[in-house]
Structures are given as structure tokens and as C-alpha cells.
């Protein structure tokens, strides 16, 4: 909208008219139009959303006050309506804050804050208030008791839908049995068709907030649902951070520029952004100069054999300074110039300035501003061959080579020739160099200042010209190389960047600054603004609400997307009481808030579906999609700015950086699941074997004694050998091959294991490898104590065949599954 306004705003009438029109849309109408986006599109859903917003608020409020949350949720039928009551034990709200917090859409302390919090938009709870007011006509009833006060305050609050201003209808003292906290009561048109989602929401909230106590009463429940806390540890307090330069947008940047008290760009950057110090600010400013002013092209000074004489030119330009001083000055300049490989005009000016100072010091003559300027002009003409009016000698005509060629052409020729492939026709390269030189000479001013995009256009134009004239093509790559050759040799200008005030007033300059910020490498934002649940508590949360056989959890390190840091955590619970039928249960959380709706549209779901779960021991029909089995997978994304697909905050948007981290976190937890399942499977096989053999062998002994007519043989020795077994099992996971040796016998075993591999093994865990004509013999001699296990690993590239042989253990004791 910004750009729309800035262009139309010029015509006063229209802008006025538009503003007029906008005022006429009441907040009620706005809500009506957008309620699907806000999560209030049906009575069933509205109730869940209202609970969600109120509970999120309550959790944030209690945590901020350092109180372990104790939250009570009650839903009652009241005639045709439902009454929703949410109580917390937070700090309460002061009389002044109260109407704003609950009453005004888009109010919220955290709208601009870079901090992980549940509510991000400040729209949630007030939307619930408005929804109840619009559907039931009842005000929101709020009771608040700040800590330490003996009595509580009771308010009735409605929102004036014309002005979006809250109005307090009742304001009286009351008593409340909680020592401190807030209670909000909303009456609304609703139904309980989304009971399952409501229960899921509360249960999942309990999973992801193991430090919270929750209680839910609703008409369908005989007993209230209670979720006790699993830890007394509050989540780490989060630090608010300043925005990261990679994470701001143009509008926000202009606002910051307008609001800042800094005077210089450098101060502004260091003051208002995280991870920007003096050095980073300087690189941003250099980049800004390049974008804003362009760079100055640099040219080679004349070489010894050249007839362009810098010294003579400078001497000519100086008058009335005496011969000695003039010569000293002219030669000083010429010498320094010759010592440079390439020069821009600003560099030349600096040289002239320095030499002038020196000569002044030596001779006592004064070289004033005009003299210095004349000298710079003269020397620059000598270097570049460009007249004061901007015409390059010899570059103007394409015909005879009689005229002295412009030194620019020779310079350009060297660069173009270097930058393009050797197969390019020399004549074409020369033509290109001439075309470029002509265009450079025509640039405004004498300093050859040009921004990169202009340089690109200029090169493209020259290339087109050459293509037309010479039938020689300069393709995309060749052009890019030429641009890079000139740009990398051009010099950043010494001019001071414009002041903050003027950038704030100039949209293009602000855009240049933004581009400079984005192109500068800057450290990722700090992560103390995030409060991950931690792997430990993710697991504790699952343990608390799911009676499973196995739990695993993983927390990734913080990463950044678009200037906002984020952390992904994943947990898996498996087996036990979790129903085995159908697909696994997927719990999605963003900043500790359960996501209940739109599972199919969520990035987490996409990631889970894309993982090959068969690898990790879960059933996955068709090899993709949600896996089946008795498992719960939970994913938590914490960020200062969680990217949702819509305002109702039901589904994570598909941001590749976040998806990658989700996948890594889930895989990390899944690997633990896999090794658990493998172990369980091998134990199961062992048990089964023991069961079956324990039954069969005695029967067989009976039968052979019957047939032979002898008394029953003693089979204990044979049984003991079979039962105390040593197993060697192979696991192949991608390139990693693992041989797991488990010793179930009651003595230590010294094994000799040889694995013959058809591809070259690398990264041996230990052991030796011998190459035998394209087959590799990998050998280990592990000692495995009784009841222990060893893992022998190595890596192979691609497909390989294996053949293992195991020695050192009696064959009866050995079970090889490799």
C-alpha cells in the first residue's frame, strides 16, 4: 500500500476521498469481513479460538511475572449462548491498561518487539472480546487483582465499533479468592462441535508447557480435565532484541529512520540494530555509497613510453608559483600517479592534495584550492585523455586510426580481453572496448561515476552496439565478466553518506540503504530472545500426557530466516498406551502455542510426510505420507517472528530454512526411536528363539530317547549354549555401516570379525582394512564384556556387498544376522 499512496497522494483530492472512505468502515465490519482469517469463522471454531487467545495471554502474563501458570478454563451453557471463563494467577492488570489490552484491536506491547512470545499481533484476545460482543451483545466481564491488593477490580467492557475505542460500562470493587490474577468472562454464540479440537488444544498446551497447571471444565465432561505440571522451572526469560539488518522491510526502515535520534547513518545502524558495531556499520555504509553514489571507474596512469605527460600537464596548469616549486609539484604528482596501478579521480585529487601540502611545506609557496583543482583537471586529462567538456580524444570517430587513440580504449581493451573467452575475435574485443570507452566518456562529470546497475546497462548497450556493427556476440556471461572486471576495479567514493534525516525523506535513498544492509554479511542475531522448551522438557511434557514405552527429543541450535532467529525442537513418544491403529499423532507448536487447525496446510506436516519413516522403523504405506503406528511426534518452532500462512496462526508457512531445521530435529529424535525399535526387535527375536527352542529341544530329546529306547538325555548343556548367545547384527544407514555385537553370555567374549566389502570402506571406528583386488577385508578384534555391546562402524560410498565372518566364539553361541 505504501507505494500506492505515495503516487496517488500527489493528487490531493483523491487521497482525501480515500481517507474519508476508509473511516466509514467500522471495526465491526472489518471484523465481519476478516473473521475467517482471525479464526472466528464458525461458532464451533470461534469458541476454540477464544479459549486459545485467552490461554495464550494468560500464559504470557504469568511467565512475564515469573509465576508458574495456574490456569482455569470453564465453558458453560447459558441459554442460547456459551459462557467462557478463563482465570489465571498472573500479575493482574492495572485499571489504565485493562481496557486497552482487552478492548482495542491491534493494541499490544509486542507488536513491534523482537522477542519470542505467544501472541505476536495483539489482535487475538480483543478479537475474542469483539466476537462475543457482536454475537451475544454482552460486554466482556473482567476481574483483575494485582498482587498485594486486598480487593479485586471488576469491569464490564465493550468496544465502540465505530471508533475502535473501548468503553468501560461498569467499574467496581469486588472480592476474589485468588490472591492475584485476571479473570475474563465472555458470552458468545457458539457450539461444542469442536470439542475434540478444544481438548487437543488444552492437552497439547499442557505437553508444551510442562511448567503450567491447566484445568478445563465444559458441559460434556463429568469430571474436569486436569493437567498437572511436570516441572517447577519457568521457561528461560527472553531478552528483547533490536531488529536484525537482514530482517527489516522498507516501510519499517523508513519509520525507524524518522524516529531515530541518531544523526549519522553509522550511528543509526549501530544504535537501532542488533549485531551492528562500528566495523559492520562501515561495511554497510561502503555498500550504501556504492549503491547510492555509484563507484568511480579507475584508469591506468600513462606508462613511460606514453606521450601523455602528467608532469607537463600539471606544470602547465600551475601559474605564478616559481619554477622550482612548480617543477617539484608537477613531478611529485606525476611520480605518485605513476606509482599507482589504477586511479580514480577522487584518488587523484587526494594525491594532488598530499603533494601540494608537501611542496608547500618545502617551498613556502601556497597551492590554493583553485590551483589544486586546475592541477587535478590537467592531470586527469592527461591520464584519461578526456577534455574538460567530456569528449574523449580519438574515441569519437570509428574510422581511421590516425588520431591518437583515447587511453580509455587501451585500458578497456585490456580489461575486456581479459574478461572474455580467448576465442573472441580480436576485432570484436577492440570494438567493444571502443564502444565502452565512448560511453564512459559520455558519463556525467569527469569522475566516471556509475552505479552497478547503470554499469550493467551501459555494458549491455555497448554489447548490443557491437553485435549490430560487427556481428560479434557478447553473451550474458561475457557481459557479466566485463561488468565485474570494471566494477571490481572501480573505487568506492570518499563522499560522506547523506544524513539520516535526508534518507528518511528520500524513499529511493532509503531503498538503497536497505539494499546495502541486505548485501552486507552480518552476524546472525543473538538467540537469547528465544526460549526453547529444551529437549529435556519436551520429553517431560510428552511423558506427562502420553503413557508410552519410549520417548526421545531433540533441540536444534538457533538458525536465522529473514533476520529472525528461530529454534526447532522435536519429540517422539512411541508404544505403550498410544493407539497403534491409523497414522501417528502430530503435535504442532509455534512459540509454545498448539496449532489445532489446518494441519494439512502446515510446513511441519509437509516435512513429516517427506521423511522416509520406514528407515526409522515406522510403517509408512507407500513409502511417503504420514507414518502409521503407536507414535506421537511433536514439533516446536520458536521464533521472534513465526511465519504463519494466515492471521489465524493455524499453520506454519513453507519457509525452506525452517523446514530444513524441522527435518533435522525430527530425524535426530527419530534416530533414537530407530535404535530403540531395532533393539526391541532383536530382543524380541532372541526371546522368541529362547521360547521356541526351550520348548522344542526337550520334546526332541524325549522323542529320540523314545525311539532309541534309552532314558532321557540331559540337555541342559545344549540349552545353555544356545541361550547364552552372542549376536552380530548389521545395520546400514545411508553410507554408514554398523555391526552391532551384543554379548548375552555370562563371560567376556573376544571376537574376531572380518567383513568383506565390495567397495572401499572409510572412517573405520577402529580395526584394520586390507585391500585384496577390489575387495576390502575389514577386521576388528573387539572384546565384549558379558551383557555389553559394541558398535563397529565404517562408511562406504554407494551400493556395496558385504560378507561377514565371525570367529573367536563357539558357533552354537553365535547368531549372525549380517
Amino acid at each position: 500500500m505504501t507505494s500506492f499512496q505515495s503516487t496517488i497522494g500527489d493528487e490531493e483530492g483523491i487521497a482525501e476521498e480515500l481517507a474519508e472512505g476508509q473511516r466509514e468502515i467500522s471495526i465491526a465490519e472489518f471484523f465481519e469481513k476478516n473473521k475467517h482469517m482471525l479464526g472466528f469463522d464458525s461458532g464451533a471454531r470461534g469458541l476454540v479460538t477464544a479459549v486459545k487467545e485467552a490461554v495464550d495471554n494468560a500464559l504470557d502474563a504469568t511467565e512475564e511475572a515469573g509465576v508458574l501458570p495456574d490456569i482455569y478454563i470453564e465453558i458453560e451453557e447459558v441459554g442460547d449462548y456459551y459462557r467462557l471463563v478463563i482465570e489465571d494467577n498472573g500479575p493482574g492488570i492495572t485499571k489504565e491498561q485493562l481496557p486497552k489490552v482487552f478492548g482495542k484491536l491491534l493494541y499490544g506491547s509486542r507488536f513491534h518487539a523482537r522477542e519470542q512470545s505467544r501472541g505476536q499481533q495483539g489482535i487475538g484476545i480483543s478479537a475474542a472480546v469483539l466476537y462475543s460482543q457482536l454475537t451475544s451483545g454482552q460486554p466482556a466481564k473482567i476481574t483483575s487483582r494485582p498482587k498485594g491488593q486486598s480487593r479485586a477490580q471488576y469491569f464490564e467492557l465493550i468496544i465502540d465499533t465505530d471508533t475502535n475505542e473501548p468503553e468501560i460500562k461498569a467499574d467496581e470493587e469486588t472480592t476474589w479468592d485468588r490472591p492475584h490474577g485476571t479473570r475474563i468472562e465472555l458470552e458468545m454464540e457458539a457450539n461444542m462441535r469442536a470439542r475434540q479440537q478444544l481438548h487437543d488444544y488444552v492437552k497439547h498446551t499442557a505437553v508444551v508447557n510442562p511448567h503450567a497447571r491447566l484445568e478445563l471444565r465444559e458441559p460434556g465432561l463429568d469430571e474436569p480435565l486436569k493437567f498437572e505440571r511436570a516441572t517447577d522451572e519457568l521457561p528461560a526469560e527472553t531478552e528483547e532484541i533490536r531488529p536484525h539488518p537482514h530482517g527489516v522491510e522498507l516501510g519499517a526502515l523508513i519509520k525507524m529512520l524518522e524516529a531515530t535520534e541518531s544523526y549519522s547513518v553509522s550511528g543509526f545502524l549501530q544504535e537501532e540494530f542488533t549485531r551492528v558495531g562500528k566495523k559492520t556499520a562501515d561495511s554497510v555504509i561502503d555498500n550504501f555509497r556504492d549503491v547510492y553514489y555509484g563507484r568511480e571507474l579507475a584508469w591506468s596512469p600513462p606508462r613511460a613510453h606514453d606521450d601523455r605527460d602528467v608532469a607537463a600537464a600539471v606544470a602547465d596548469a600551475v601559474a605564478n608559483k616559481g619554477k622550482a616549486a612548480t617543477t617539484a609539484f608537477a613531478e611529485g604528482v606525476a611520480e605518485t600517479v605513476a606509482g599507482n596501478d589504477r586511479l580514480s579521480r577522487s584518488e587523484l585529487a587526494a594525491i594532488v592534495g598530499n603533494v601540494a601540502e608537501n611542496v608547500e611545506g618545502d617551498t613556502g609557496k601556497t597551492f590554493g584550492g583553485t590551483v589544486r583543482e586546475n592541477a587535478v583537471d590537467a592531470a586527469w586529462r592527461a591520464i584519461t585523455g578526456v577534455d574538460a567538456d567530456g569528449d574523449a580524444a580519438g574515441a569519437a570517430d570509428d574510422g581511421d586510426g590516425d588520431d591518437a587513440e583515447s587511453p580509455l580504449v587501451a585500458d578497456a581493451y585490456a580489461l575486456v580481453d581479459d574478461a572474455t573467452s580467448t576465442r573472441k575475435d580480436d576485432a570484436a574485443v577492440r570494438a567493444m572496448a571502443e564502444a565502452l570507452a565512448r560511453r564512459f566518456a559520455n558519463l556525467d562529470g569527469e569522475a566516471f561515476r556509475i552505479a552497478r546497475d547503470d554499469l550493467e546497462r551501459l555494458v549491455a548497450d555497448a554489447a548490443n552496439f557491437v553485435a549490430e556493427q560487427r556481428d560479434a556476440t557478447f553473451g550474458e556471461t561475457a557481459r557479466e565478466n566485463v561488468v565485474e572486471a570494471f566494477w571490481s576495479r572501480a573505487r568506492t567514493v570518499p563522499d560522506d553518506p547523506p544524513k539520516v534525516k535526508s534518507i528518511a525523506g528520500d524513499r529511493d535513498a532509503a531503498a538503497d540503504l536497505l539494499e546495502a544492509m541486505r548485501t552486507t554479511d552480518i552476524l546472525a542475531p543473538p538467540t537469547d530472545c528465544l526460549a526453547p522448551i529444551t529437549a529435556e522438557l519436551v520429553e517431560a511434557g510428552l511423558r506427562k500426557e502420553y503413557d508410552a514405552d519410549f520417548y526421545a527429543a531433540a533441540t536444534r541450535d538457533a538458525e536465522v530466516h529473514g533476520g529472525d532467529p528461530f529454534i526447532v525442537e522435536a519429540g517422539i513418544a512411541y508404544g505403550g498406551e498410544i493407539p497403534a491403529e491409523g497414522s501417528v499423532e502430530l503435535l504442532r507448536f509455534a512459540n509454545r502455542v498448539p496449532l489445532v487447525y489446518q494441519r494439512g496446510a502446515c510446513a511441519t506436516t509437509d516435512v513429516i510426510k517427506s521423511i522416509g519413516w520406514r528407515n526409522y522403523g515406522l510403517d509408512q504405506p507407500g513409502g511417503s505420507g504420514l507414518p502409521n503406528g503407536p507414535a506421537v511426534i511433536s514439533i516446536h518452532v520458536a521464533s521472534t517472528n513465526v511465519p504463519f500462512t494466515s492471521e489465524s496462526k493455524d499453520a506454519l508457512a513453507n519457509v525452506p530454512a525452517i523446514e530444513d531445521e524441522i527435518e533435522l530435529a525430527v530425524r535426530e529424535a527419530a534416530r533414537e526411536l530407530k535404535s530403540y525399535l531395532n533393539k526391541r526387535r532383536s530382543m524380541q527375536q532372541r526371546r522368541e528363539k529362547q521360547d521356541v527352542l526351550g520348548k522344542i529341544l526337550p520334546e526332541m530329546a524325549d522323542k529320540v530317547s523314545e525311539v532309541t529306547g534309552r532314558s532321557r538325555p540331559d540337555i541342559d548343556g545344549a540349552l545353555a549354549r544356545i541361550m547364552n548367545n552372542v549376536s552380530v547384527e548389521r545395520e546400514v544407514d545411508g553410507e554408514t555401516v554398523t555391526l552391532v555385537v551384543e554379548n548375552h553370555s555370562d563371560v567376556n567374549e573376544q571376537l574376531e570379525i572380518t567383513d568383506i566389502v565390495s567397495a572401499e570402506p572409510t572412517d573405520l571406528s577402529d580395526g584394520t582394512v586390507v585391500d585384496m583386488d577390489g575387495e576390502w577385508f575389514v577386521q576388528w578384534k573387539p572384546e565384549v564384556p558379558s551383557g555389553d555391546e559394541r558398535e563397529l562402524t565404517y562408511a562406504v560410498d554407494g551400493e556395496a556387498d558385504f560378507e561377514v565372518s565371525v570367529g573367536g566364539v563357539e558357533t552354537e553361541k553365535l547368531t549372525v544376522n549380517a
Partner: protein
Amino acid sequence: MTTESDARDELIDLAADFYDQFAAGNIPEMTLPTRTKSNIEYDTESGVWTYGDRTSTRSANSVRGARKLLKAAYTIEFLADQLDEDRSSTLRELYYLSESWDNDEAQFSSQDESNDLVEDLEIVTGVTREDFHMRPEESGATLMGPLLIREQTRRGEREIHCQEDVGAGGYQIPNNPDMIEFLDDDIDFALAVETGGMRDRLVENGFDEEYNCLVIHLKGQPARATRRITKRVHDELDVPIAVFADGDPWSYRIYGSVAYGSIKSAHLSKYLATPEAQFVGIQPEDIVEYDLPADPLSDSDVNALESELDDPRFQTDYWEEQIELQLDIGKKSEQQSLASRGLDFVTDTYLPERLDAMGVI
């Protein structure tokens, strides 16, 4: 051959081996030659193919192995009892009989399993299935030709002339052909025929009378009894044996098992195989030479032919040449395709020409 009590003793000895292994604190096991194509070797002395040196062990160390040995113990008991009582049973009866055993683990899950086990026991004890009194389900060959035999039946001795005393169907040999004795014959050679239709054609055309030929009906892949009687005819009557089958890879295997022994019963090759038996046809060469009606080779035919090229039994110049020719022309023909030249073509022209060329007549 072993007597019945020898057979019983061998079985009890095997059970005693298991007993001793238990008693010594070891895990019972049974070692057998590996029964795969790669483990059969040519025995130069007898001219047949027998198992090589590679062995596999059935050990009670694994669940599968333990179940196998338990079943072996039960089967040993059953066979020993059967021999005691002088009864006999069929392989299929053994499979169903296992259902009556008191132990679920000992019951066979398929007939292949019980057949294999009986073969295992044959190999380990060196006693043939016939001596265990185990009969196959399918009947053996029928014979038609100038041969007088005496058969020991449960109802006494019978003397039978295989041309004069039998109907058009010929003489049906018993399951244990060692129960018959050759008394007299007027046979110049024996012709083992694969299909019933061709056998009937030869008999109808009087081929057996005209050429003093014993026509042996193989009935497809020949039963052991059929192969045994063929070998006895060759060895005891000293007549050449010619095998007349279809011109396809499956029929070459029929010839192979008559002449060289089969992979599954390679332990009995010396007792069953007739290495001197010759292949009459249909040869791939005949398909070309007589321009016989032919079907194209299917994929499985091609696979079978290629696998025969790897089969040690077929690694002779003659077979390599024929199989490669067949792969080349991509065709196969049945015996009956000779009828395209008339019903008498086979007896008047084809067989006389081929047998003459082979030096049989």
C-alpha cells in the same frame, strides 16, 4: 540293497546320533550335502552326476533348524514303526499323518517339507525311500514290449508278459521296481517316451512288435520307479535305451534325469541314472531339418535353456550345440508335431532314421 531291518537300524542309529549329541552337551545337528546345481559333480567311475563335497548343516541352534530336527525325530519314529509292522504309506499320507502327532511344532507345513525331509533321511542313512516303505503318489511307468517278468505282490507271485498278457495300456510297474524279476525277453532296444499320446501312437502302429522294442511310458518327469526300471532294463537286459521327448528345455531335463540323475536325488544317481541313455528327439536340429510346426520360445523357455547351458549335466558338445541352435532359431516343437507329415511318419520314417543314425538299430 538293504533289507527292511537294516533300514530300520539305520534310522534308529540316526536317532541315537542325536541322543549322543544331547548327552555330550552339544546341540544336535545333521550334515547333508548341499543340494544345489552348483554342488553336483560328475562321477567318472559310474558316469553319473552325484553330490559334491559341499555340505550344509541342519542345527538345532536356530528356530528353523530345531523345528526341522524335531520333525526328523518324529518321522524317524513313524518310519521305524511302519517297518516294524510291515506296512507302507505314501509321501502324501506322511504329510497328513503328521497332523495326528501330539506336537504342533512337529507337524509339516507343506508336502514339499515332508518330501524334503524324507529325502534328507535317505541321504543321511543311505537307505532308499522305497526301503522305508514310502511310496510316491504318482504311479510309475507302463511297459509295452516283448518282456516276461515275475512280480512279487502282496497277493503272491504273478508272471506277466508285457505284450501278450496286458491290454493296450501296457504293464504298470509297481512302486518298488526291485520287486520284479526279468524272466525272458526278445528286446532289441527300449524307447522311453515322454507323452501318453506318442506312446499310444507307437503301440497302435505296432512299433514295439515291428522293431522288438520295449516302449517305456515316462509320463512326463519320470518317477523314481520309472528311472529305476529303465536302468534295470539297460543293465540287466543289456539293451540300448533311447529317450523320445518333446523338443523343449523341459523335455531335455526329462532326458537329463533319466540319463544323469536329478539334482534332488543325486544321492541315488548310481541307482537310478542310466548314463548310456541316448536322446532321440525332438532335437532342435529336427525342427529345422523336418520343417516341423513350431511355437516361439517363451521367456521362461529361454531362461530354462540358458540355465541348462550352466548345468553341469548338459555341458557336452552335443547339448551345447543343440541348445545354442534352439536359442538361435527361437522355436520349440512337440512330439505330436510329427503328425503334420501323417500319422505313420513317426514310426515309418522319423524313428527309423534317427535310431539308425544313433546306431541303435
